[in-house]
């Protein structure tokens, strides 16, 4: 029997519901702020002003967003193929190894615009390789991708410690990090773009990786909705049985989707290393791979949504740092709580308010139509 359904207009689906989720997250966060004895409204003002109030705030927000765009896209590509890649953290971290080797080898001989493409390829290749093993195990052995990718996060962390302490750090150094890259591996900043609008920026790490992230967002859109491969991935993602019926090889599609996902996760390592710190340091990914999961969910697995969600999380990172600075009662951990609430309401509880919104819509528009027609019939 057919199931009747209530459909929402697109603007409510993609606009209203995320806004409601976000509002609820901030209201609950507001209570948390009140609990520690601060004024939630002032906190909100500081947060937003910190993120968007000044030129450098905007630059920092977009810098953080850059990394999240990559990791969000990575999660989304796998999710379209029905795979939950939570190994972005490890795939991004291990990509630092490729970047480190490329930069240390070429930064003294090549200009940045030659080192950069090589480093892009190296980071993507390392990330893809790190995703390949879990993908192969899933496709051939049925080992669950969630388990294997999370295990590989730990392996990546250990490998990176080994590499950084072993051969990547300069022999004389005590710090587990590479030497500072020379000009040949330092990416140009984009702060001048913001300065065009009249803002003043003393120093901020926003760099051309942001543009690369936007290009990748477009390419991911192209891949998912406009190519045969994307079609096959979506088919498998929605229904493995239908994919089998359509003659799509399960092994092939899982491995390809995971490698693309891993490559995107790998590319997120470019931003903090070549773009900001100009070295590869211990734990430089610092959780961005996991934030990508929330970004992808909140962006509803669509590149446009992911870019917007990444900017939101960039704002929370940057504004949160300002908040911790301005309001001593609010520590860094409190910021993490606020971020957690956003993830909770926008990601995990994404559909919590949907039924109510649907009921609201159903009770407004169609009913009036229905009653009118019924009256017409009676007369």
């Amino acid at each position, binding site marked *: *029997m057919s199931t*009747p359904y209530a459909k929402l207009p697109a603007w409510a689906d993609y606009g209203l519901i995320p806004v409601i989720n976000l509002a609820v997250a901030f209201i609950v966060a507001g209570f948390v702020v009140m609990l520690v004895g601060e004024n939630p409204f002032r906190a909100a003002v500081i947060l937003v002003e910190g993120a968007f109030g000044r030129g450098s705030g905007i630059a920092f927000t977009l810098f953080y967003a850059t990394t999240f765009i990559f990791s969000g896209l990575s999660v989304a590509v796998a999710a379209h193929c029905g795979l939950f890649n939570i190994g972005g953290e490890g795939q991004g971290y291990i990509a630092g190894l490729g970047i480190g080797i490329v930069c240390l080898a070429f930064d003294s001989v090549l200009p940045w615009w030659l080192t950069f493409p090589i480093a892009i390829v190296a980071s993507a290749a390392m990330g893809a390789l790190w995703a390949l093993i879990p993908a192969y195990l899933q496709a051939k052995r049925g080992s669950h991708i969630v388990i294997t990718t999370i295990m590989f996060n730990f392996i990546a962390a250990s490998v990176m410690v080994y590499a950084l302490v072993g051969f990547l750090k300069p022999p004389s150094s005590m710090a587990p990090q590479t030497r500072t890259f020379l000009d040949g591996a330092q990416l140009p900043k984009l702060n001048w773009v913001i300065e065009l609008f009249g803002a003043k920026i003393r120093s901020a790490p926003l760099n051309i990786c942001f543009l690369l992230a936007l290009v990748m967002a477009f390419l991911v859109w192209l891949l998912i909705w406009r*190519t045969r491969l994307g079609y096959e991935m979506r088919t498998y993602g929605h229904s493995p049985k*239908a994919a*089998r019926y359509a*003659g799509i090889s399960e092994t092939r599609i899982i491995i390809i989707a995971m490698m693309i996902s891993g490559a995107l996760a790998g590319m997120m390592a470019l931003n903090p290393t070549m773009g900001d710190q100009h070295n590869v340091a211990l734990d430089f990914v610092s959780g961005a791979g996991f934030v990508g999961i929330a970004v992808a969910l909140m962006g509803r697995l669509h590149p446009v949504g992911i870019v917007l969600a990444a900017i939101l999380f960039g704002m929370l990172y940057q504004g949160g740092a300002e908040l911790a600075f301005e309001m001593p009662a609010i520590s860094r951990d409190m910021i993490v709580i606020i971020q957690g609430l956003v993830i909770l309401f926008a990601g995990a509880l994404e559909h919590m308010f949907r039924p109510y919104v649907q009921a609201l819509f159903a009770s407004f528009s*169609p009913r009036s139509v*229905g009653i009118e027609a*019924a009256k017409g019939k*009676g007369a």
Partner: protein
Amino acid sequence: MAQAAIELIGINKSFGAVRANRDINLEIARGTIHGIVGENGAGKSTLMSILYGFYQADSGEIRVGGKPASIKTPNDAIGLGIGMVHQHFMLVDNFSVLENVILGAESDALLKKSIAKARSELERLEREYGLEVDPDAIIEELPVGLQQRVEILKALYRGAEILILDEPTGVLTPAEADHLFRILKQLKEQGKTVVLITHKLREIMAITDKVSVMRQGTMVATRVTKETTVGELAELMVGRRVLLRVEKGEAEAGAVKLAVKNLTVKDQRGVTMVDDISFDLRAGEIVGIAGVAGNGQSELLEAISGIRRAVSGSVMLDGKPIDLTGAADPGELRDRGLAHVPEDRHHVGLVLAFEENENSILGYHDDERYLRGPFLDIDAIRNDAKDKITKYDIRPADCRLKTANFSGGNQQKIVLAREMEQDPGVLIVGQPTRGVDVGAIEFIHKRLIAMRDQGKAVLVVSVELDEIRSLSDRILVMFAGRIVGERGPEATEGELGLLMAGVEQREAAE
């Protein structure tokens, strides 16, 4: 005239812009069996869901036993003595009958007392209504007919005076269906009221006292069953005259297109589902495979179409072998001219979350026509989808609409259009009209016969005996994984029914 058990007055219900029920008035007399028929999407299920408390009507009134009733949840409905047997059983497979019956009606935290009480109550109900089931049997070990009995017992145990059955015979053999009807008659004699929702008009004629017909959300007519005919009901349902049996000429069978020899297939658990089956399928004929669901037909189809790996046996397509025990792949078979309309269009034949046009290339997405290099040729795909929509009268005619939003009949047309328009030499079709309304059934049957007349080989698997008999040039009956008999289209229903129940084998052995 008996007092009304249920009265529905001016019920309206809309989902978004869809008006599922408009101004429905219905009166069901106490102690009768009342049929409700209508095509898919006519609003039968919605109406019953309102009565059972799954949905709230936008306006209108429900009266139970003459008193206005407010039914907000299924619990309210149960409290008013309304019970429902769903099309898909709501049973816990690994629980016993007794445990399922008390589920949700336990009287205290420790089950011992509840079970003891339920056991004696169950025995009384079983005696009274002829509903014998072993209370300690595990559900998954029971045949479907008995599982349904458990559902009925569940409703009666909760004190149901009014029993709603939603498409109860879809999964039953003819014999099981007959038994069900005897039970329903007995319930009626005991003063219970039965509401039977179905699209099978023959059942309506056989068992109901009154029948109401729904079409496009409205109640178009209520008739006393004795005073109406199948033809009239079908016409009321569809709104025009319908051919209940397709006209077709003699088959001109040609060369063997598909030769199946000693095919054996096992399911995931390693149980042999298809046991050493051999048959030929010729050009220009329709071969029907009849059988009760679960006797290996699904596995047979999956094996032949390359979805499921066979254990042993050989299959020749156009005289050349296909490696069904090894590397055969649905894509390869498609390239060689074997098209497959799968039984389960929701999970296999279609991706419901896709737009219609995306589904119209599923399986053929490798075709150069739909591609420009690695990219999909969106214009070509959409134009192709639009052509098929026109040719197969798929409604609504919107190739960008999500497939889940089409009715069952139109979804099936999407699959058929895709597979038939590839001009395959062999077409295998599983349950061509399951969940499809009467108007579309006629269309689909005509198309299948047109395929045959073009000299294609068509294999149809269906649990609808009427369908098999009206379409097939030859009928193979499957029972427990084997072909237990071959008959011509003139075979009677009783004869096929016995074969389907595996009876003839036993008789032959005696």
